[in-house]
């Protein structure tokens, strides 16, 4: 029997397969397809201090092996989350982790403090990497001093497992990883979307209402793998890896590069069953390669 369980800063996951924030709603929609309890965890849609309507339509452009989005953190705010959403998801038989976003350090702190009170949410993922909001968002994730500051501010009030999600839109990902480690992060999630744009040549206009947006899907997988590998070598913190994972082989690649947990993101849009199938595919891989525990594979990439 293969042991798929993993551990991040004392928090155990029954398997390393989780779903990326913004691609799984609050888990409710997927209950029509399968039981979220089959997954290691779910990272639910970003929550901010106040209601956000998000950006104007069009918010999506299909691109080769990927897509651009500029949703802009549409959500109903922390009050609504605690009152309406939390009761519906608190009893899922899986780790439910909340992605926390804000425009100011105060907003990040406020939301983190509120979620700290929720008994069945064992961890938050600090989103300092959203490219689709005007204030805050990615700005916190591209300047190391700001990344340290916001992480440290949240660390003061947040007592459980603190993950920080990094932006790939930087010159040195290791510098940012070190910055959030200095701020007190327990784990690092990478990568968020790559800033990109799409143009409609016929109309001579951008496809997205916001002109630029975040690129996701298999198109970004090589960049994500490289960043997971670099951070794994440079920083002694567990990594949650994502970026274009479409199947179990992709997931294994991220684990070999150094990820303890992986997130399935854009693939959920194409196949709502994909994350469950990835769990099964990882089991098959372990049997084929005679791997007793998935943790043996974390960072096990051979470069000799």
């Amino acid at each position, binding site marked *: 029997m293969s042991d798929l369980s993993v551990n991040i800063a004392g928090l155990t996951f029954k398997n390393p397969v989780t779903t990326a924030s*913004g*691609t*799984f*709603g609050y888990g409710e*929609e*997927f*209950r*029509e*397809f399968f*039981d979220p309890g089959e997954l290691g965890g779910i990272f639910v849609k970003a929550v901010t201090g106040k209601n956000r*309507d*998000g950006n104007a*339509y*069009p*918010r*999506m452009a*299909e*691109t*080769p*092996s*990927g*897509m651009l*989005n500029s*949703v802009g953190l*549409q959500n109903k705010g922390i009050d609504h989350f605690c009152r309406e959403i939390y009761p519906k998801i608190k009893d899922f038989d899986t780790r439910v982790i909340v992605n926390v976003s804000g425009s100011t350090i105060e907003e990040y702190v406020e939301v983190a403090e509120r979620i700290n009170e929720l008994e069945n949410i064992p961890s938050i993922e600090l989103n300092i990497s959203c490219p689709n909001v005007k204030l805050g968002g990615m700005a916190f994730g591209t300047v190391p001093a700001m990344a340290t500051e916001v992480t440290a501010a949240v660390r003061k009030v947040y007592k459980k497992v603190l993950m920080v999600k990094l932006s790939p839109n930087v010159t040195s990902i290791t510098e940012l990883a070190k910055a959030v480690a200095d701020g007190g992060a327990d784990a690092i999630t990478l990568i968020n979307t790559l800033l990109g744009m799409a143009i409609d040549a016929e109309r001579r206009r951008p496809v997205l209402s916001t002109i630029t947006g975040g690129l996701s*899907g*298999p198109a970004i997988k090589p960049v994500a793998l490289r960043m997971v590998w670099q951070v794994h070598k440079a920083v002694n913190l567990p990594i949650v890896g994502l970026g274009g994972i479409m199947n179990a082989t992709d997931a294994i690649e991220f684990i070999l590069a150094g990820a303890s947990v992986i997130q399935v993101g*854009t693939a*959920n*849009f*194409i*196949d*709502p*069953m994909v994350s469950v199938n990835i769990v099964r595919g990882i089991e098959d891989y372990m049997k084929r390669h005679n791997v007793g525990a998935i943790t043996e594979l974390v960072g096990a990439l051979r470069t000799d």
Partner: protein
Amino acid sequence: MEIKKFVQDLRVVQNIRLNKRHFILELQSPEKFPLILPGQFVQVLVSNSPSTFLRRPFSIHSVDYANNSLRLLVQIKGEGTLHLSKLHDGDSLNVIYPLGNSFSLPATRDVLLVGGGAGVAPLLFMAKLLNQDHIHPTILLGFRTKEEVSEIEEYSKYGTVLVTTDDGSAGEKGLVTDHPVLKGERPAFRKIYCCGPEPMMKAVAKIATMHQIECEVSLENTMACGFGVCLCCITPTDKGNERVCVEGPVFNVNRLNWGQEEK
């Protein structure tokens, strides 16, 4: 736990070419269909090309419960639909269905169905449902040219069919909104169901609003998932930004802020 939506490999049983740009795909399920309603749509996977990464949404044209088969009316627009146009009997297609809400039933017998281009797809399905309530709607269909006028005999089984073409080569010349039944001083309908290009739906909605006729439209916003999680297909409504794939695709025009834009 209730499982309401399916991700299934459906078998292509017919691919019927209507004209240069349009074709009908008939797909059969190995299992018994759930209840499917007019206005609902499917998400079709077009695999093996990097440029057709996401699924393609199509409105359901008709459902045959006896055969567990459904039909899609598809317009060739790009690489994905071109690939679908080349499928043969026996080919397999991965489909998520049924998705979205549906047209509501009318509280009147004076019903008009208006469609343009491939937007006519859900109207045939709706016309059949109305017939079950012994309502025989007027069905106004807009096409580019005579060459594209298709399935009139099929629609005629369920109501009175009127046609417009852009060039006047069949039916009335002009857009659907140029047809006397809509252009007249007081259109003789109490309910309009409309699907087609957005400018057409807005023009129909304007006429409906002017004459206080209840009007539902089916939106075709671009989407990634089709089941409510990507939040890409939103449209502004009286309740804020709503998802076309879950709260829609059918909306009563009173709920959309189209009126304000025109004013």
